[in-house]
């Protein structure tokens, strides 16, 4: 069976592989037999091999070097390009993070290939599905030149185990000076949250301008915590200083596709929809019966969030 390279995206030091990697391994199986590629500092692969094998990696290529962590993006693209030229895979699948898309782009130039970003599905013949224009248009596309490179949008494919050998194969790494121009000086975490990561969460509760203040966002957090959800925010809420930018959902923020999306005090502007329209179930709580968010909602409550949300939070807690 044809080999498909899947770039493993890892959590910060020791945190295992990200769910997006398991999704990518699952999606890659439509095209052939996945091999995982682990790029990281020495010692990275040992901790994640088992998980990669469980989700279908026949081979785990281990390319470990401090350079891969110390310099931005370019070294990873270089190692992948080397693997593509040695293994001639049928395709390359990469989780669709900002870095993943940049690696895909560089790899495309290096290997003379085409690439498709943010795909939500990959068919056996290589046709990919993409969602365009704020979720309003569904597109089928194909790479027509070189080795097809895909970046897979998070939460679009359900990860399914398919145990395989996961044989470790070391890859010698020598990064060119050209790829070592951009040095990562420091990685700074400003918000540590015990909540699930926004793009990976199966439930997201978002607040908008209607929440009215930063303090009042505790209402949103309360509901989120009762559901084990991530917290999101509209741009108006972010611009008003209610919640940090890294939680913004929408065209210029994160794209989420959870099982359940709860929009609280959000009007449903097209740029907000762009980031949440593909959620499986959408609930809206808004005091304006004409708010466009209701057009998308599977369930809507017309009412004041300040009473509806805390009451619902109490009732959800009571059910546990």
């Amino acid at each position, binding site marked *: 069976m044809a080999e498909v390279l899947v770039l493993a995206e890892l959590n910060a030091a020791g945190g295992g592989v990200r769910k997006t990697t398991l999704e990518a391994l699952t999606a890659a199986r439509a095209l052939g037999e996945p091999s995982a590629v682990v790029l990281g500092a020495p010692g990275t692969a040992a901790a994640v091999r088992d998980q990669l094998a469980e989700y279908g990696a026949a081979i785990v290529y281990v390319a470990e070097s401090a350079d891969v962590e110390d310099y*931005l993006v370019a070294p990873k693209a270089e190692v992948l390009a080397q693997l593509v030229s040695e293994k001639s895979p049928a395709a390359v699948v990469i989780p669709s993070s900002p870095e993943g898309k940049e690696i895909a782009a560089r790899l*495309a130039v290096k290997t003379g290939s*085409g690439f498709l*970003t943010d795909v939500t599905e990959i068919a056996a013949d290589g046709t990919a599905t993409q969602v365009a224009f704020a979720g309003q*248009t569904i597109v*089928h596309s194909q790479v027509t030149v070189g080795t097809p490179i895909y970046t897979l949008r998070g939460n679009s494919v359900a990860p399914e185990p398919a145990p395989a050998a996961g044989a470790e194969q070391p890859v010698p790494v020598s990064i060119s000076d050209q790829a070592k121009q951009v040095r990562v000086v*420091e990685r700074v975490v400003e918000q540590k949250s015990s909540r699930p990561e926004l*793009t990976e969460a199966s439930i997201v509760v978002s607040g908008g301008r209607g929440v009215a203040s930063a303090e009042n966002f505790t209402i949103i957090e309360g509901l989120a915590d009762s559901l084990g959800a991530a917290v999101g925010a509209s741009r108006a809420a972010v611009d008003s200083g209610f919640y940090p930018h890294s939680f913004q959902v929408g065209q210029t923020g994160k794209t989420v596709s959870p099982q*359940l999306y709860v929009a609280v005090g959000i009007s449903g502007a097209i740029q907000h929809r762009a980031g949440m329209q593909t959620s499986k179930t959408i609930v809206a709580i808004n005091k304006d019966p004409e708010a466009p968010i209701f057009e998308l909602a599977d369930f809507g409550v017309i009412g004041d969030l300040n009473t509806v*949300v805390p009451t619902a939070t109490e009732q959800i807690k009571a059910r546990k």
Partner: protein
Amino acid sequence: MNIVVLVKQVPDSGSERKLDPADNTVARATADNVINEMDEYAIEEALLVREREGGEVTILTVGPDTATDAIRKALSMGADKAVHVVDDAIHGSCAVQTSAVIAAALQQMEYDLVLCGAEATDAQLSVMPALLAERLGLPQLSGARKLTVEGGMARIERQTDGGYWAVEAPMPAIVSTWDTINEPRYPSFKGIMAAKKKPVETKSLADLGLDASTVGLGSATSKVLDFAGRPPKGEGIKVTDEGDGAEKFVEFLAAQKIV
């Protein structure tokens, strides 16, 4: 310090956007076209660096005739001049091809920094800085929420989930900016008037030494096979809160087996 800012014209994200069924490319001729919002932040950042360091800000746009509106907007904000690459053969190009055109144009220019938006709102790729860095061998400083230049080095805070990475590289370098980096200025009346007299140089593929067969729909590295509108959602349930809104919401969640 000479700065080139990449500016794209895109269909307004707030109005209806479509693909053209004739060739499955973005319907630009019938769209309500505007300057890519993200690029305004790149322009603003370039103007701020120029205020500190001196030098010139040049806009570079690859796009159809109508893109002159986006160029004028950039000039009215305060950029000094512009280069507009227009050629009918470019229609339908993929990102890989467009990056070759932009790279060729940049090779005819002098710069210490190339600034661009973190993403174009039409296709939302966020790949142009990576593509250009790869083609030109330039350092890629992408996704900036802060930029400082000092002693021949450019340093950014690269926005990440829940924080940032401090990354640095020697100039010339290519930097892309998010909307967290600054607050773009509005063009003043004086700026709008002045923009009308600022030089805009038009270049064709031939001027860039590029063969028309390497760009455009015919040789694109990927193609759209077909597209369709998203199937409309079935009518949802809507309740008005009369003291029982929360309860009905929780019952809905229970029916969905979420709680």
